């Protein structure tokens, strides 16, 4: 039970044009965190701040050697804008780790990871875990070089084999990350993906055709984060499933994407 845990901000810096990297100390949680899980933060000086009112979910981006948690975020609204004001030593009300992470209990030697935009954030944590089991390739994509620079640096630093796609061609392959996969012709026997729904839908179609099993992490607008409000449900072949509770990671085969 991890309610109302007040955690300390270790650092909160702008990394690249688009992203901020928040490092928090929450040693009570770190041993039970799996890639793909998320934490739910109450942002605002007062814990009962009414504006923003709801918590904000953030996927776990990485764990430091000292077991601090890294969250990567982009300023997209009021909550994330206020979050940029947090300084070292400030406290944040955290609920987590929440949701089901990536399941790593499978036998595979050729794993492919495909990430688009902000969806790359949790995949970095996953890739670091998987890298220890070898044979891995990561494909990442975004709008342009500026958006991808941070990730390029991180994957390079971690010595993980990766390739980049950008829509404008300013870094790596010009096109989507799915186009890159098609051209690259990597033949994995298992895959992980996270990114915009349009990308995941394409990944699912191709994987189905080639008979490749895998897992995807989904994003939906969320309120409670603990499975009571049913705001974040997504269609699956077993009916609606809660992204916050049964997810955010689902098997690639079970998710139903609307056209």
């Amino acid at each position, binding site marked *: 039970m991890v*309610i109302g845990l007040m955690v300390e901000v270790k650092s909160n810096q702008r990394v690249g044009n688009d992203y901020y990297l928040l490092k928090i100390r929450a040693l009570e949680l770190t041993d039970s965190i799996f890639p793909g899980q998320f934490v739910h933060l109450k942002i605002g000086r007062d814990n*009962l701040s*009414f504006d923003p*009112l709801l918590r904000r979910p953030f996927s776990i981006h990485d764990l430091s050697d000292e077991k601090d948690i890294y969250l990567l975020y982009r300023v997209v609204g009021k909550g994330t804008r206020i979050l940029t004001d947090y300084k070292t030593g400030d406290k944040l009300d955290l609920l987590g780790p929440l949701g089901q992470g990536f399941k790593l209990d499978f036998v595979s030697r050729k794993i492919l990871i495909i990430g688009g935009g902000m969806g790359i954030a949790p995949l970095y944590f996953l890739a670091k875990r998987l890298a220890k089991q070898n044979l891995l390739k990561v494909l990442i994509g975004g709008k342009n070089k500026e958006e991808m620079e941070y990730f390029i640096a991180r994957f390079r630093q971690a010595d993980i084999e990766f390739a980049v796609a950008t829509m404008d061609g300013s870094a790596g392959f010009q096109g989507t990350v799915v186009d890159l996969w098609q051209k690259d012709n990597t033949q994995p026997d298992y895959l992980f993906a996270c990114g915009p729904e349009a990308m995941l839908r394409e990944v699912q179609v191709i994987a189905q055709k080639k008979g490749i099993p895998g897992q995807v992490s989904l994003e939906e*607008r969320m*309120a*409670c984060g*603990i*499975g009571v*409000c049913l705001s974040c449900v997504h269609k699956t072949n077993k009916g609606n499933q809660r992204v916050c509770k049964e997810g955010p990671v689902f098997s690639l085969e079970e998710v139903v994407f609307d056209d």
Partner: protein
Amino acid sequence: MIELDLTTRLASLKLKNPVITASGTCGYGEELKEYLDPDIPGAITVKGLTIKPSVGNPAPRITETPAGILNSIGLENPGLEEFLATKLSVIGKLNVPVLVNISGHSLDDFAFLAEKLAPYPQIAGLEVNVSCPNLAGGGMAFGTDSELVYRVAYRVKENYPGPVIIKLTPNVTDIVEMAEAAVAGGADIISLINTLLAMAIDIDDKRPLLGNTFGGLSGPAIKPVALRMVYQVASRVKIPIIGMGGIMTGRDAIEFILAGASAVAVGTATLIDPGAVARIIEEIKEYMIEKEIKRIKDLIGQAL
């Protein structure tokens, strides 16, 4: 140190404290147990039930507005059959009164649900939702017509032996008229308010933000409206009231009790702080100690 008496009565229901979990914000009680001991609330109101299973509305189903949230979940629920098969045993294990919230598309739907739920002692009472803004062809339509409010109350009472709560919508011109219709139909208790019909627009997409276009506004933004309506109804109606709408703290709860509510329900607060109900009960106690009030019952309607 004075001994505090938090017990309250809602018709034949005795609650150990006046704080109830609001429907749709606590699942079937067990979903919250990691964060809130299910023995703590005065009562638990489970997720709205319809006869047939409902998949709810398309995404996005939620968005935040200043000091409020706008939802269009659309009463996603497993339906009566599945509820009886799997959820009844779950709520049977709870040690506090469990209220089942029911919704329908017709008078017959409400009567049918009432009749089917009547045999189960695990259920302490029914909360009749005549006010959901997210149910096409039903829900709020009933709650905005006093003749229909009367008939829904009457038909449910006719088919259900236990306490019947009519949950009113705020989306009406005269809330007292609706409350009086519920009383005339035989309601034992009135709960109010449900969410306010509202919307948000995405100015980048130039489209309504919610998949269902409209949704229900809840949270601190609606508290003054809810409080006013509880006050108006309490001034005119004799049956007990469950007050709700944006209660985030014990002080908010006290306001509703002073306005005439015999109990309060907490919803949106739980979505942010899953232990909110326990915290609010503690805050009510702090207020009582500070003001040297022994019995919460003594506060009911004091501001009227």
